[in-house]
């Protein structure tokens, strides 16, 4: 087994994180089989408290919709937004960071000034503004989160690429006549991936939180509810029905915690200093 994977599998943090994520992902995928009823349809009486009716363990919301089923179905929106926006942000970040780090000079200056421009705007307010302008939908939320979260990736990749730029194996490749594009893709990028992967898992967590916050403030996609949307919609009835916002909140907490644990574990696993200690 790959030593990194082996270290990862021995790390309890990674195991806990991975298990929680697996459960969340599976329930998102298999929700229609677990809860054949339409999660939008009124299932029973509204404001049903949890742990009263075995058929509706987590109770119902103000329109009588099953909260348990809702959590499973809405995991899709939250996870899709988290993953899609992170993938997009990582791609943008890698492209910009790699170009800036590899070529340096004025290209670096231009790209980094652009990156700093995005970094100086408060991210959440910027995301909120973009969703408001683009009109709330799943796509606009993904775009907004992506646009506010690529700059750190770009900076990370740039510094990694810049430090690898003058290593011997890169020079050797240059001497062998490989093109710039091939050198970046085949020689340099594979060596920068581990910190990027660790960072990406944390970015998914923060994207899920950002989406929840956007939805909480009422700018979520009304046709594809997410966990944050559930909390936002139930916030005002919290004195009558704590469970409507508590359970989605708990789920967000668990998933974000899981992603953070996994991210840290990945970081540890990729970290060469810890790696040596592990081998001793």
């Amino acid at each position, binding site marked *: 087994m790959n030593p990194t994977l082996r270290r990862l599998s021995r790390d309890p943090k990674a195991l806990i994180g991975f298990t929680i994520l697996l459960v969340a992902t599976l329930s998102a995928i298999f929700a229609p089989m677990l809860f054949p009823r*339409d999660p*939008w*349809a*009124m299932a029973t009486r*509204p404001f049903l408290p949890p742990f009263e009716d075995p058929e509706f363990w987590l109770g119902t919301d*103000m*329109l*009588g919709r099953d909260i348990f089923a809702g959590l499973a179905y809405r995991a899709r929106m939250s996870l899709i937004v988290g993953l899609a926006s992170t993938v997009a942000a990582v791609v943008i970040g890698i492209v910009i960071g790699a170009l800036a780090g590899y070529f340096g000079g004025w290209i670096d200056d231009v790209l980094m000034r652009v990156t700093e421009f995005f970094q100086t705007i*408060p*991210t*959440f*307010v910027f995301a909120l503004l973009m969703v408001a302008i683009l*009109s*709330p939908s799943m796509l606009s939320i993904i775009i907004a989160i992506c646009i506010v*979260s690529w700059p*750190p990736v770009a900076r990370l990749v740039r510094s990694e690429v810049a430090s690898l730029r003058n290593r011997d194996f890169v020079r050797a490749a240059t001497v062998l006549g490989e093109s710039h594009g091939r050198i970046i893709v085949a020689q340099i990028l594979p060596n920068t991936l581990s910190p990027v992967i660790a960072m990406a898992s*944390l*970015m998914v*967590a*923060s994207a899920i*939180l*950002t989406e929840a*916050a956007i939805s*909480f*403030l*009422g*700018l979520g996609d*009304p*046709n594809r509810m997410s966990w944050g949307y559930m909390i936002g*919609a139930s916030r*005002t*009835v919290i*004195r*009558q029905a704590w469970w409507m916002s508590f359970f989605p909140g708990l789920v967000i907490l668990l998933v*974000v915690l899981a992603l*953070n644990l996994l991210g840290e574990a990945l970081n540890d696993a990729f970290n060469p200093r810890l790696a040596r200690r592990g081998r001793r």
Partner: protein
Amino acid sequence: MTRLTRRSVLKATAAGVLAGILPAAVRAQGADGGSMNIIAFPEPPTLFIGLDQNGSTQTVAGKIYESLLTFDFDFNPQPGLATSWEMSEDGLVYTFNLVQNATWHDGTPFTAHDVVFTCRDFLMEVHPRARVIFGNCETIEALDDHTVRFTLKQPFGPFLMGFEMSTAPMIPAHLYEGTDYRTNPNNDTPVGTGPFKLAEWSRGQFIRLERNPDYHGEGQPHLEELVFPILPDAGARAVALEQGQVQQSQFFDIELFDVPRLAELPHLDLISRGYEFYAPVARIEFNNRVAPFDDVRFRKAVNYALDRQLFADAIFFGLGVPATGPISKRTRFYSDDVTTYDYNLEQAEALLDEMGLTPDGDGVRTTVSFLRLPWGETWARFAEMVQQQLGQIGIRVEIEPSDPASWTQRYANWDFQMTSNYPYQFGDPALGVARFFISSNIRQGVAYSNCTGYSNPQVDALFEKSAHGVTDEERQAAYTEVQQILTDEVPMAWLVEVDFPTLLDTRYEDVIVSAIGTNETYRKAKLAAE
């Protein structure tokens, strides 16, 4: 980045809570005569009722300004600034005798000249709703200082309803005549004839009205002062009421789900009377121009698929009853002799089948959009409920979010398929209902006109006939027929007759005494003897 996001959310939440802290200056006082704290939400942009008739402006300014009449719960006219009035047999001449001893808050006597100025000049220029009424007048003249005569071009059934406070608030001629009404400096210092006058307005904090000692009503008003704390946060409003810092809330001040809880508190009464003049019907407006809404079978199918009782119970928390048609039971000339649409999914599906709209592999027959009303959660849930219910018969509903500006713009320009709404009816179908159905009022760019594009010459003729009928019998006959046609052609789906809740401290009495309820003068309101 994770941390920053979390912090932003916390900040947003904290700001919401802190915004609701009540200014200490507005606590209830047990002084002689007593005072009353009433929620003002949102803060009125102005107290000059002549130029602004927003909800909260009416609630505050209704204590400062008066009209000639007010109306009991059954719309029988009651004396205001007029002590008596009569209509000629042919319905063309109305004569009002005014109170003799009324003065404006600056001491100038109130006379017939003020009435003539208000109805003939002022309102005709600035008040669209009043223009509909006083546009019927041939002449408006003062016979002497305390007698006014209105002569109409043709009979106009709801004419007397025009003398409600927000429709025809009396404006002081000596301050406004010959000026530019919109920029008149007196707009900031309201001068009315009402039982209370403005004492202090601390912007963003509270408005304080004090007793008008020269009020024309003998021994009135009873209360020494009225204070209107500005409470922008819904949670803070509920707490203020719960803890006795304010003694009254009205309209949708309190979120509907909080109303049952607060109504059970021993020191609060829930009163649903006093909104007869407004009596809105929560409804879905279809854009009758676009497919599939141009087909009456589709509109009927939607009507059958909506469980009105469920809307009343789950969306309005029981503060409302299922509606049967365009006119509320509380408005004049309601008829129950109409086509009704009981919740019936088979019938709805049969109609869709007949249209050839058959379900595809996912059970979807067609996809339509719903422009969500941007006025808070009740209407967001309303949209979700429509989506859920129509989904049952295979109509997939895409909810389109909107903000107030974009909603108004899209609604006024017919850029929607379905949207919800709950306009006031103003006591008489000629004032509050006809405007949505007559084809002469299909005006692109004007919100609250006939935005559905419904057009039926017969309906036009009936509304015309009933507005200009003289006796209530002939008006009722025409309105019954209109309601039958409209419920058969269903240009809209009428769902719930909404009851606004007034929550009132039990120590006060004679507060809600008319069809305009909390917008009334409160000349009779008093603390009960203990």
